[in-house]
């Protein structure tokens, strides 16, 4: 349970458009109501339209902070992952989204903030500072991030190598990473489709991995990325095995 703090919102004093694009954004009652309604609708949608099958739900940590890490096949991925969390945790869950895609206009920023509660991640220059803010927030607020270390969606359905940036979130922190593998999302919504197809999707959740002992330097980050990539590829193998055997 979070301790009480007499402390202004971290985005206090920012104009609305700046708030929506800030990694320090905090939701109030209206924001929470919007998120609850959104996630309820998404859960129903995934269950009915995509017949979402989930394995390993019991492996999720019961308390934040932690980071959900998965392969990136489509725009449905963040919805699939975050929707599996209990609502108490989901209200403190932030998918990390590319700022140049989801926060490039006020309308898209408002949508990303009001619905999935996404936080922007700058790609390229300017990203390091935002990444520091995100890393600090993960520890200070005991929240959950949803991250896709490939950096972008797969163009052909296959998994790309994980970028070391994921290590910068996790090296030397108490927050474990939970590897997850999504299958079927590419078929449902490849990059060239705007509306998803009603095809089945599966999610497999792996055991949390802690990187508290990992050095917070390039070597440590690369090692974390490699370990997580292997863990997700392992889950992919299990998933394809269980699918073929099932």
């Amino acid at each position, binding site marked *: 349970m*979070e301790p009480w703090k007499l*402390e*202004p919102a971290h985005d206090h*004093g*920012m*104009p609305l458009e700046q708030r929506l694009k800030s990694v320090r954004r905090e939701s*109030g*009652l209206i924001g929470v109501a919007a998120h609850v309604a959104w996630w309820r609708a998404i859960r129903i949608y995934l269950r009915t339209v995509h017949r979402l099958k989930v394995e390993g739900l019991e492996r999720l940590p019961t308390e934040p902070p932690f980071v959900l890490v998965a392969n990136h096949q489509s725009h449905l991925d963040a919805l699939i992952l975050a929707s599996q969390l209990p609502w108490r945790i989901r209200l403190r869950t932030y998918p990390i989204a590319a700022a140049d895609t989801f926060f490039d206009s006020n309308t898209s920023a408002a949508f990303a903030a009001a619905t999935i509660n996404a936080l922007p991640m700058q790609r390229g220059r300017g990203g390091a500072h935002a990444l520091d803010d995100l890393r600090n927030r993960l520890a200070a607020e005991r929240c959950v991030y949803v991250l896709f270390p490939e950096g972008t969606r797969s163009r052909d359905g296959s998994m790309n190598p994980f970028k070391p940036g994921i290590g910068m979130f996790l090296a030397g922190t108490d927050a474990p990473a939970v590897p997850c593998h999504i299958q079927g999302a590419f078929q449902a919504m490849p990059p060239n489709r705007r509306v998803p197809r009603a095809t089945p999707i599966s999610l497999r959740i792996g055991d949390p991995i802690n990187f508290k002992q990992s050095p917070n330097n390039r070597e440590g980050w690369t090692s974390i990325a490699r370990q997580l990539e292997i863990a997700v590829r392992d889950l992919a193998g299990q998933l394809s095995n269980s699918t073929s055997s099932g």
Partner: protein
Amino acid sequence: MNAQTRQRLFGVNHALDSGVVRVFVIAIVGIFILTPILFMLLRSAGKIPDKHYEELWKRYKSWLILGPMMTVPVLLGAFWTILAVGILSILCYREYARATGLFRERITSLLVAAGILAVTFSVLDHWYGLFTALFPLWAGFIAAAAIFEDRPKGYIQRVALAVLAFSLFGVCLGHLGYFANDRDFRPILFWLVLCVEMNDIFAYISGKMFGHLKLAPHTSPNKTIGGALGALILTTTMAAAIGHFVFRNSTVDHPARLIMLGLVISICGQLGDLLISSIKRDLEIKDMGVLFPGHGGWLDRFDSLILAAPAIFHLVGYFRGIGLDQPARILSGN
């Protein structure tokens, strides 16, 4: 609901029946038209530096939004007035909750918001019994509900902040809406809001002219004793003079009573301002919000009404009553 009540709630066709309201509306429209002309004349005469000119324009543009937001609901009828005050109360609470961190306490915050809605309902219903009962009942409810979190660390501060919020933005501001249950609510509300706003301006101007001694330097460094006394004299004079026309032929229309109303508006207006300044200094923030350029947030703009509204409500109520000839419990009654 009878025809008289419907007329009060939605009777826009009678909005300008009162001569006082007509003068107010003409004055407001006139000020909006003349102000930019005055700015341009002063600038061309070199009386306003460029920096101040930009700032004045920002403030003027904010007033172009604020002015209609404050006057149009009152002209449209009591229903819209009460609704507007209810929305204002929620917006003020939102700023306060974000400034204090109370917004992170979801259940407590929801209860404060629900309490404000309950007050707004009692005002709309013209159910004075419920309106007065809500403060003790809801304050107790907030305190009791927080027990169930089983989180004693910080309990006093969380509950005290929530009860303070409910009392200031629910109950105190709710009195502003309750004026709308009076048959003559339009002139009374225009008079009250005008006097409170002018009180701020009088304090600023008097402070610039005579302000040497600081009033409360740790709370609000720019406020001076000269400004406070100047506002007291000027606001009282203005409130009494205009109040004579607003309350004509009623028991309020007596020099001593009108002067008392003016003094109360000025003192409570300044105290409301200092109250919000105290909260801001405690939290080490400059403004409560960033909604209006040059004004800060809703609370920075309407802080002077928080204490003035209930004080004037009860004073006028004591002298002549408010809404006594209007049907009560229009929604909940039989």
